[in-house]
């Protein structure tokens, strides 16, 4: 191939690649911007007086007349609603469920993979089969059971059913199974008890997957809607999602309030997301990889 032809075609490729690359970046970042528009909209509206909010025209930048920026919605929420209490409730429920899930799921996954006992295959089979039971199918009988146990309006009434989820068992089972048996054998020869093998060998090795699972479960339980809605009928016991909706349905014509409560309701989790983005995403990707 003559050199001139080659350099020309190479040049043509280069510019074509540059155009393609530019278009790709525009498309991807443009799409990211569109996805972020609801955020910008919510933030800017949460600081505007209802007078501006009822105007059909959206004010991205508040007009510099009258009183363009206000904290009244936030002040109202903090003074007149239980939003702080709801945040605390949500922390306790999501945190409690997460701790319980990580503890009992890692214990059974350890037992099913690192200990050898008759019937463990059947147990794992039943847990796997329960994946087919959609959560909502159970709500009517589950409500009766939780009610019989006297757990309505209690944190435990939300935490315990959440802890029954087989997802964590499944993920940890897959991970624990692949830990080489040599580690454990060496430890056993050194006189480790089963408890020591669990706390000093398995748990440290599983730290990345445990933290990913914990963060995912925290997010999941923080956001849970239908079940807390059923169990928590007392306003002081609400989680944020339930409180938000009640506030919304009781004040349907106060757009500023809706936006401010949306911000307050998602802020704690968004901060956690910004810090632990990697782990949360990894927990989702693990689900996909094992599916």
């Amino acid at each position, binding site marked *: 191939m003559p050199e001139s032809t080659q350099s020309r075609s190479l040049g043509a490729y280069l510019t074509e690649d540059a155009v393609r690359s530019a278009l790709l970046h525009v498309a991807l970042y443009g799409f990211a911007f569109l996805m972020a528009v609801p955020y910008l909209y919510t933030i800017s509206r949460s600081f505007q007086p209802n007078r501006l909010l009822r105007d059909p025209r959206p004010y991205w930048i508040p007009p510099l007349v009258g009183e363009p920026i206000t904290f009244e919605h936030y002040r109202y929420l903090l003074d007149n609603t239980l939003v702080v209490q709801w945040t605390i409730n949500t922390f306790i429920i999501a945190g409690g469920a997460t701790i319980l899930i990580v503890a009992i799921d890692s*214990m059974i996954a350890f037992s099913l993979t690192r200990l050898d*006992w008759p019937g463990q295959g059947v147990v794992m089979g039943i847990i796997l089969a329960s994946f087919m039971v959609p959560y909502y*199918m159970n709500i009517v009988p589950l409500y009766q059971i939780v009610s019989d146990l006297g757990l309505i309006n209690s944190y435990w009434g939300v935490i315990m059913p959440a802890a029954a989820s*087989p997802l964590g068992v499944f993920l940890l089972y897959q991970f624990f199974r692949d830990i080489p048996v040599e580690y454990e054998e060496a430890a056993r020869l050194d006189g480790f008890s089963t408890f020591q093998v669990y706390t000093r060998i398995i748990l440290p090795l599983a730290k990345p997957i445990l933290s990913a699972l914990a963060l995912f479960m925290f997010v999941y339980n923080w956001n849970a809607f239908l079940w807390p809605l059923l169990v928590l009928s007392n306003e002081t016991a609400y989680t944020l999602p339930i409180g938000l909706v009640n506030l919304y349905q009781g004040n349907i014509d106060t757009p500023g309030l809706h936006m401010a409560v949306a911000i307050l309701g998602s802020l704690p989790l968004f901060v956690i997301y910004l810090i632990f983005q990697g782990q949360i995403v990894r927990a989702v990707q693990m689900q996909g990889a094992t*599916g």
Partner: protein
Amino acid sequence: MGISERISGGDTGTNRKTFMGLRKETIEGVLWSIPYLAVFTVFLVWPAVKGLYMSLHTYPNKFDLTETEWVGLGNYVELFQDPVFYNAMEGTLLFVAISVPALVVLGLVMALGVNRDVTGKRTLRAIYFSPYVLTVAVVALVWGQVYSQSYGLLNYYLGFVMENPPGWLTSPDLVMASLAFMTVWWLVGFNFVIFLAARQSIPERLYEAARLDGATGWRAFKDITLPQMRNSVVFVVMVQFILQFQVFAQPYIMTQGGPSDSSDTLVYYLYRSAFSQQQFGYGAAMGYVLVAILILIAIVNFKVIGDSNA
């Protein structure tokens, strides 16, 4: 083996026979499983069994659930003659038909885009995934204003290109599509990150080999990318079917099933039957029908996408 020095004595005989002739390891294995199995049994297995029982009974006294009346398959028969059930089924299917394909295809397109040679992959991933960490209540509050007919963001800008933009949540023809669109915004990040991981794990040499054979672009996508990502596609389709079939919060918060019942869904109807009208047997029966439908969908899914590329 530094750790061993800190351990004094200890037992190495994990297989020693102890209690009632059982191996120590068997006892330990059961003990370590009991905490989860107890929670699992009481809050997942037992309700499933109890639900079957409840679905075969009615509860004449709303305040005393120990009073039951055997009706056999009566609840199921009634359900299949209930026009509200069929309407809710229609709404659910419409929602699923719009949201699931959009969630899967868009998630895939986003993943393939970000997988290319772009700067700022982490930033893009952070933004694309972020709505997933919002609670559905926040999503509903925000989009309630985006869709609002009197001061909505969407209709203000649509007003420039069309006259009288529609009421997104007030038109019976559009309401489900609007709820589905919002749901895609909320959840597409989940599919996106799964697809991205699956795409990144395809060995690059497959594409190099294909390039030598002259297969690029669409053919490389069809012959390499899709088959290699089959497992994750099957997974995502299944998860989204199951999840979207159980749509509840969006219509509950934003439309209460309206206008004129056009956004009613199965789980919403189940919720109303059991918890507003206190028809517990009826609600439990609906739960079982829901499972039957989902299992059917799962089988069809596996048959259609599970086998086609095998």
